[in-house]
């Protein structure tokens, strides 16, 4: 019989936190076979097949329906799946992996506090520098959707794979859209968050794919897993979702 597949992050802090979280819920996740392998199982929930997937690819796997469940950041889901509302069910916010997707500009822009102000400087900037202000980000879709909802379109996206916070100082972009937890890295790079610049308050979520093949049996197992996990999520985190 085919099993219900759950994708969890294959490495890094998200994997550790996921394992801890499962442990708090009384669930021991262990790898099957070779220690470097990418399959696992959960003690006490034999009908779940665990797949270790790099966290960036969990969204894609959920989108395609190649896994039933996945644990990943809401930011990655919203960025990679344009119609997340129909393709994905957010079952449980897990209380870790907190990250805000934000718009940040150089702190020396004392004349800019909101997206509205950005709009005001875009045209003078273009007249002076011959191009629209550039936004460095890896969240291309979130950025476009957020600015679009505010009627702001006078900018250029520069795709940035890493160290995005350094882009303004390096002259690669004028502002950034990135994730932050404490704001420390932003401050260290001379940046500030716009007053209305929080695009998304993200955290790790247990998500279900609507594209996967679901059976009543799978639904039951999924409900059982969700109940166990939700019992061990701090109340505050759960309400944040």
């Amino acid at each position: 019989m085919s099993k219900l597949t759950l994708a969890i992050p294959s490495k890094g802090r998200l994997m550790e936190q996921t394992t801890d979280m499962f442990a708090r819920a009384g669930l021991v996740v262990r790898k099957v076979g070779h220690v470097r392998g990418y399959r696992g199982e959960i003690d006490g929930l034999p009908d779940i097949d665990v797949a270790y997937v790099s966290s960036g690819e969990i969204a894609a796997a959920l989108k395609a329906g190649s896994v039933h469940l996945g644990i990943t950041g809401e930011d990655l889901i919203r960025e990679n799946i344009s119609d997340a509302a129909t393709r994905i069910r957010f079952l449980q916010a897990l209380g870790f992996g907190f990250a805000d997707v934000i718009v940040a500009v150089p702190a020396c822009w004392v004349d800019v506090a909101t997206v509205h102000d950005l709009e005001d400087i875009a045209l003078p900037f273009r007249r002076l520098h011959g191009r629209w202000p550039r936004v460095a980000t890896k969240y291309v879709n979130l950025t476009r959707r957020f600015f679009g909802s505010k009627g702001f379109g006078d900018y250029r996206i520069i795709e940035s794979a890493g160290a995005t916070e350094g882009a303004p100082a390096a002259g690669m972009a004028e502002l950034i859209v990135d994730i932050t937890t404490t704001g420390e890295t932003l401050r260290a790079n001379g940046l500030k968050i716009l007053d209305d610049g929080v695009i998304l308050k993200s955290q790790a979520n247990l998500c279900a794919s609507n594209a996967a093949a679901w059976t009543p049996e799978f639904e039951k197992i999924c409900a059982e897993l969700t109940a166990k996990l939700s019992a061990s999520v701090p109340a505050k985190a759960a309400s944040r979702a």
Partner: protein
Amino acid sequence: MTVETTRNLEALAAQAQTLMSVFTKAGYEAVAPSIIQPADVFLDVIGESLRARTYVFTDQDGAELCLRPDITVPTCRLHLERHADPATTARYCYNGPAFRFQPQGATASHPREFRQAGIERFGDKAREAAEAETVAIVVKAIEKVGLKDWTLKLGDLGLFSSVLDAADVSPNWKKRLDDAFLKPLSFRNALKDFASAARVESPGVPEELLSAVRRDEWEKSEAAVAVYLEENAIELLGTRSLADITEHLMVIAEDRQEKPLDASAIELIERYVGVTGPATTAGEKIAALLKGAKNGAGAALETYDRRLALLANAGIDLSRVTFSAEFGRTLAYYSGLVFEVNSSCLDAKSPIANGGRYDGLMRVAGAQVEVPAVGAAIHSERLLAATVKGAQ
């Protein structure tokens, strides 16, 4: 995705031949600009909103390229390659594929790959004459293909500027409203802002700085901003200079000093934006609006009337022509006249042809100066569909 049938392909080829023969007979040189274009020009012209509709890709050398979303910008680039002086007069026509991502999914009336047949003319100093001729040639070409049932919709992005003059709007508000006109959402906000005392509050911008900057004391103002940054241990970084920041602070401070837009100006602007209807009566409506304005109608309506007269002279039946003050506001690079041709055989959101004046585009494409430019493109698949449907 629609798989094309041979019959469609042949019909499109025959139609293109007819269109191109009308264009070339009228003195337009047939050109074929590259299909693959640098993405920069397009994204810089239209901003990030177009990226969502353009197939952008990176080649093996890391250059950011795109499949052309229209053929107007490529024709501008071709013109610049040929002529050291971008203001050289020239007339071009083309027929070829263009590509647009369709966020709602590709359909027959909104395909992701379509053919555009069009004309562009550069450097003409007789503005309204060039505009009327462009419209007339497009209509002639469409009729030659066999479409009898067409309507023409006009807009005029320059007319708004004249309305602001008539309403005696201060130079500052005028510049800002002119800039905002192309963006309906920010335009509404701007009107609201400039009309109320709310703009006096600039939340998040340090009050002490706004009172420290004065245009007649530029150096002192810039120094005040520098001191503020230093006292707050803020490092000056990035592309915008201390002067850029000071300049914008001044604009904010000046906005606060400026008298709010008065109610009569706002009413005039709002009523103008709402003008729509047959082109002949729309002119009368605007005239009636401007009659009561502080500075009178001025030259604005002369242009409007002259253009209509030129269209009539060129053989356009004015009873088929409508005007909408709002029309063209979201059409990216146009700067004056805008128009589209519709057919009752297709829905209103699927125009058969559109075009207009775009004097600023050549500059974005690399010229040092603005070049008078008017052009239009026909959506081949739609024209074919409308013609076939109309013949049934």
